[in-house]
């Protein structure tokens, strides 16, 4: 059946079964491949996208649930890879293989939207569902904090921004 989605600000009309997981609709049908398949059971977080700004696991979210909501994938997080998290990720050379990182960034972006200055514990809790087999976790924590610092108005006006 025909389903209309709003993905990264653009309307998409798909001819898919409404029960198809959003992950496969995004990857196979729409052709946005930044969102990854890692487990299919909401165990690894590689497929995290935003529905109206909330982090959801696209691998267990039927595409029908996205109807009427704004879907944001890693490709739509910022127009040019300039989200503070994306910049911090590059500055601190967080990725190793990189496969899990779009899910990590999307989860962290939803966290920062709610908690602009998260503690270590809040970062660990928020990202507990995002696996990284290469083991980049210490840098992920550092990058989330760096992004939080750089997004914070007080830091910006203080002129002490770390380059």
């Amino acid at each position, binding site marked *: 059946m025909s389903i209309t989605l709003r993905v990264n600000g653009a309307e998409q009309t798909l001819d898919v079964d409404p029960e*198809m997981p959003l992950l496969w609709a995004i990857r196979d049908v729409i052709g946005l491949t930044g969102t990854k398949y890692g487990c299919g059971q909401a165990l690894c977080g590689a497929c995290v996208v935003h529905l109206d700004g909330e982090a959801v696991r696209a691998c267990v979210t039927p595409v029908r649930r996205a109807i009427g909501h704004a879907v944001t994938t*890693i490709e739509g997080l910022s127009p040019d890879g300039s989200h503070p998290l994306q910049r911090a990720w*590059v500055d601190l050379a967080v990725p*190793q293989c990189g496969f899990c990182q779009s899910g990590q960034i999307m989860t962290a972006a939803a966290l920062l939207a709610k908690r602009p200055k998260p503690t270590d514990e809040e970062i660990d809790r928020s990202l507990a569902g995002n696996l990284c*087999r290469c083991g980049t976790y210490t840098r992920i924590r550092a990058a989330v904090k760096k992004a939080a610092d750089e997004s914070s108005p007080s830091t910006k006006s203080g002129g002490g921004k770390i380059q």
Partner: protein
Amino acid sequence: MSVVLLRRSFLAGLGLAVGGFALGVIGDAHAAAGSTPPPLAPGGAPGLHANVFVHIAPDGLVSIVCHRSEMGQGVRSSLPVLIADELGADMARVKVLQADGDVIYGDQNTDGSTSIRNGFENARKAGATARTMLVAAAAKRWSVKPETCTAHDHAVFHPATSRSLGFAELVADAAKLPVPSASEVKLRPRAELKHLGAELPLLDGPGIVNGTAVFGADVRLPGMLVAVIARPPVVGAKLARYDATRALAIPGVKRVVEIPAPSAPYHFKPLGGVAVVATDTWSALRGRAALELTWERAANDVYDSARFREALSAAVNKPGKVVRHTGDVDAAIASATTKIEAEYHVPHLAHAPMEPPAALARVDGGRCEIWTSTQDPQTAKAEVAKALGLDPKNVTVHVTLLGGGFGRKSKPDYVVEAALVARAAGAPVRLQWTREDDIQHDYFHSVSAQRLTAGLDASGKVVGWLHRTAFPSISSTFAPGITHADAGELQQGVLDFPLAIPSVRAENGEATAHVRIGWLRSVHNIHHAFAIGSFIDEIAHARKADPRDVLLEIVGPPRIVSLADLGVDKLSNYGTPLDKHPIDTGRLRHVIERVTDLSQWTAQRKAGRALGLAAHRSFLSYVAVVASVVLDPNGKVRVDEAWIVIDAGTILNKERVRSQLEGAVVFGISIALHGAVTMRGGAVEQSNFRDYPVARIGEVPREIHVEIVAGEGLPGGVGEPGLPPVAPAIANAVFALTGKRIRNLPFDRAGLA
């Protein structure tokens, strides 16, 4: 070449131009490139073709080929920079191309921590050859001697007359010169390599964080279908019958393809089963779930991990094949004042890279073209050619980024599956493994048992050491009738660990494989370092001595250890002669001393926190680890801080060495706390991260301190050697904290994780 030049990097620092992977739908125009690729710059592009690794276009743009696969270790951010550095190129005017599988590049198998240690000199020669030609062209133009010229910053200079010519101005002349012979090419003095040992920017970082980086499953072709395979639950089981009626009724399912079961040895052959081909992944998965399958009984049905543990234990509790021998161990132990014995078990492990295996294949008119995340595109090409009955020159393997490898993606069974299904489907097919497929049908890290016995004299000094190890050999995957490990496997901790003990004997017990055994990051060093590292700690506690002092005493004084000292006739030494990479206990001692200094080993610890230490040489590098552990409120072990020191000789990219070691600590935590694949009735009992957990963010230290010993010697490995000492360091810390000795991995079986 499956690579295009994208926009300039926004990376600070070197400003490396990003040669990203071509993204998205590949047009039909590309289909013609189904043959062996030309060396570089296809279509007879003008410019200087110095060799297969370096091309300089008329506008001065330098293209450098990375012939090894990128799986997070940073090879694409490292080896091409060395070539450019030796050339004298400005990194802002360099693009990196990813090599297809082709013998012209030499060995491309990204495995064994070899990319830098084996590629270092060749990379320098490749860059120096191009530089020599550019310098010769400039010298001729100026009528000066080439040796009075220098090349740097993308130009050749004649300092005596303050003249210079940019690479672009020299390309046409240089291209007319003969390529110099190896003896005519001089490498730069080390001091001129300005990026050597530096913190280099991450080439693929920007594409990874914005979602445009391309992994194996991300390549798309017009008319492409997606397939998943229902494989036999037991290795070697044949399909008795199947009914695909329900599967074929599912919308989107196009057809099913039966793949015959292989006979042993299984090598890189597909496991057989039934492929479901559909328009999209979800329809293929639904189709697979609807298949009705009946498997025949198979010889490997007998495989039961609990029973096999007993068999391995029996194998190490009786004499085995003697593989290392000095002095008289039996007499030394019989006359010892104290005898210490311990038995260690490490289960099968799955690689579980975050990206499950995937390959896209197009078979058309006697040609096959593949896009996949593979560590070894040459072997993938050879295996596909064999399976399809094609000449290898008609098979092209394009290498994407790898979403983790750890050894799994050196085995191209999944690539062969893709090719077979694509041929049968008459359309391009992406063959997708699910996580369940990945955990259940891996080439597993071998299950092992080890028994160590030490005899101590009245002063506590170890005078006799007996090490028995038994594990199904990797060779069993490739040859019939294998019952023992080979020397290349036993060198990994058993034959080569330096022991300043007069009487030493190592024995290898019998073990037969019932699953596909493969190599996983650091391979048999995982279990051997766990046993040796734990046992030395046990000896120290039995003596009520400091484990560091006992470790240093057993390693012995600084020296180069000979084959006679080890008690072996020969040592494969990771494919490198011992005179080039000797076993140097001075270097092993140094990393132990550094890591214990950094972690303030001798300082009083806070209550509820304890340290553990282990050290190991593997892949020609020396690593020591100190782990600090605490117990959380539920009595579970948590590593709250870790220190790791490596001496890998010359290092190329300090930033990626550091990240590899951070990653090794986390990988080691997964092995220590959670890693276990078990079999029942020949089938794997685990299926996903729910029952094959790997470390999550809350389980890793807030701080991992890495120190890299500055060295100018030959490069050693980096990707693997960080891992072996991690699990024993953690186990030793747990003993220091709780008095509980973990001899069976993982900890969660003991309720500690």
